[in-house]
């Protein structure tokens, strides 16, 4: 079946099977391997991407459901001039990852939060991020990174 959608700000058209998940299309057809797949049952959050600004698990979200929508993956987050999104920079600055396998999903989930709530409280961060598992860090540096990014984005907005 034919699928057309906006992917990281650009229009895309491709053929896919009805059973193809968004993660399969992104990884296998489009070579966008930044979206990681782990649990495959929508529990770990590693495959989180944004569809019309809402975080979804690409491992179970059928590709055709994205028709006509805006899909944003980790590959679309970097600015065209190569500078990083404040969340990406904050994850580096706060050592908010180790193996890095959960990181793209973590950053996309956090982006959805900050887009909706630019100044989240610690409890709001924890509540929003509870669907993303990290096995390496113990979460504390990830919370710090999201707080740092929020402050950075607020500052950017002011200037």
């Amino acid at each position, binding site marked *: 079946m034919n699928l057309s959608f906006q992917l990281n700000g650009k229009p895309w058209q491709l053929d896919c099977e009805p059973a193809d998940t968004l993660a399969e299309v992104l990884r296998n057809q489009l070579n966008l391997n930044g979206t990681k797949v782990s649990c495959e049952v929508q529990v770990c959050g590693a495959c989180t991407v944004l569809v019309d600004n809402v975080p979804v698990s690409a491992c179970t979200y059928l590709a055709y459901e994205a028709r006509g929508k805006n899909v944003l993956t980790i590959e679309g987050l970097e600015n065209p001039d190569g500078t990083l999104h404040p969340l990406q920079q904050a994850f580096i600055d706060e050592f908010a990852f180790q193996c890095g396998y*959960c990181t793209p999903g973590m950053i996309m989930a956090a982006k959805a939060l900050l887009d909706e709530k630019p100044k989240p409280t610690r409890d709001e961060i924890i509540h929003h991020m509870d669907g993303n598992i990290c096995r*390496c*860090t113990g979460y504390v540096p990830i919370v710090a990174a999201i707080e740092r990014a929020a402050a950075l984005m607020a500052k950017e907005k002011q200037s």
Partner: protein
Amino acid sequence: MSVEKKSDFHVVNHSLPRRDGRVKVTGKAQYVADLRLIGMAYAKVLRSPYAHAKIISIDKSRAEAHSGVYCVVTGYDLDGINPYYGHAVKDHPLLAIDKVRYAGEAVAAVVAVDERTAFEAVELIDVKYEELKAVFTPQEALASDAPLLHQRQFEAGALRGFEGEVTAGKGTNICQTHKIQWGDVEKAFKEAAAVIEGDYYFPMTYAYAMEPYVAIAEVNDQGVTIYSSAQHPFMVRHDLKSVFNLPVSSVRLIVPFVGGGYGSKSYTKIEPLVAACSWKAKRPVKLQLTVEEAMLTTRSDDAYTWMRTAVDKNGKIIARQAKILMNTGAYAENSPLVVEKSTNRCVGPYAISNVLIENSSLYTNTVPASSYRGFGCAQVTLPGESQIDELAKKIGKDPYEFRLANAAKPGEEFFPGMRPFDGTLKEDLDTAAKAVGWGKPLPKGHGRTVACSGSDAGAYPLTSTAIRVHADGSVTIMTGSTELGQGSHTVLPQIAAEELGVPYEKVRVVSSDTAITPYDRSTGASRTTTLMGSAVLEASREAIQQMVVMAADVLKVKVEEIQTVRGGVRCGEAQLNWSEVISKFYALPDGEVIGRAYIRKSGRFSALPVFWEAAATACEISVDEETGKITMEKLATVGDVGLAINPALAEGQDLGAATMGMGIGLFEELIYEGAQLMNGSILDYRLPRFSDLPKEVELHLVQNQDGVGPYGAKGGGEASLNSMAANIANAVDSAVGVRIRQAPLTPERVWRALKEKKGR
């Protein structure tokens, strides 16, 4: 080796940003799951539904006739290779042969044009089994009428430097036994002023590396090439060499970034199977397990421990005795070493003059157990540190003071025959206790504890490296250490930059390609900073020595006239940086100098363990008496790391380890009901999440430069896990007065214990 003062460092001991930062936050970091080779096929595995059964027949004709299938491989298609592997003993067939030994064991593999086709064809394989009696616990495996899991005599694997003799395959279900003994335990217990005795259970746990096991193999005339998520490519190479009967040089393991290991990717897992698939299908083959399949591949050893500990009238611990039964599952994997380590780790970090520890691991019809962060230590630290608190309570002492009074002291040879203790437990315990407000009043229902761990690191000193200094002054480190997230790609460049005086940003790491990077035994047991770090330091210094000779040649002076300065050399007025030395030597701005280092069990690495891995953790919890639910109020970790090459990374390791330990203390447990693993999916296996993180966290490092590694560094990253389950059990006792001798302390267990106490 003289140790430089902390204040003198330019690059090390600074929390520089990770070298793998940018690729990991942009989604560009490549893991094996992301790789594809031209002409690559995909494999899927058929697994046994039975725990123990004879294979009567396998009919693969329908699967082989399925469109898109290249071949179907079974244990009966392996003539021409040696299908049994294992680094301790070769007890593990790459596909079941004659019988299956656990529910979930690989029986056949389909190789097809894509994963979906392979998956469809797996359903078309018809296997007839004859069910056999099965055993699931060590106690059942020891019974006189227990069925024997393994009938063969095993060949030994590549595990060298192992102190004991592997006992597996001697006509019983005993996989490994280990015993340590000194003093006179019976006499000491008779003379004791107080004794605590109890039975403890530490559960089976699953490491959940978020990247499940994955490998791509290509077997052809050149030999065997495998891209794998393995932690120890050189150990896996040895298994593959033996399966295919090839010279070492014909087997190449390549490991890109690994998506989490925690010991679960130690040693060989699916590589022989995927290589056999490639060999049969005559093309590259990729096999990626699902998380559910990964849970059927490796778990930690669960342990039943009977332990007793005695004190004299002065509060000095005088004796400890334990009998441990560990459940290694269907195959030995690394359990022989886990048994040895858990036996030793019953003692530390206390100086006890009478000790008797007897430990056995048993084959059972369950998922094979192997390494898990801290191998064997958490299993015995639950009883060990529980008994310290129980004893302190019994004799009316503060458990923190009681620990201080008995902890091994710096330089003390508290474990006969082993390296004297190289940590500072007093400072570790002080720091941890202070962080959680030791001694201050607590609200009702709250408990506060401190615990410690000191384990004989399993790191065996056999490591080599090459450092290439290029003509522009940039540097490439060739290392066999794998980047699992622990930060080897950051720490090793920091050491090279410190020594060579080149910018940190100009040092790049090439890692874990057995055809290119020099031999490193493994990436585990907290060894990389200490052993590979030492190799990088020595290789950098060796490169400098070579460049001094080159500089003398270039400047036409005697070598003795050359003086080294940071980043180069000086001779009178002339000063040359490394780029100038190399360029002038070759008379072109090209070429390089290769520094080398070989670390072996000699010199400062001759005494084992190469270091004691020491840490203290402390926590405050609250218990909801209505529900039994535990809340983590505070957590403090103290890593006794000698010197942190990158303090932020060292603290991150401690917090990650403590969080895993907290998970085991609170809710992580693989549950078997009969033959079946009941919670073999992330839907059912409860892991720590954001909402579980302690309300307050403090991370501390103790840096006395007392290790044998670079600048006095030693390993970390396991020890904060080890004491957490005991910490939580002790805190529950302190909060609500119930003693639970089993992990995890689920709300149900706490609630039942409270109910039982009220009923008394």
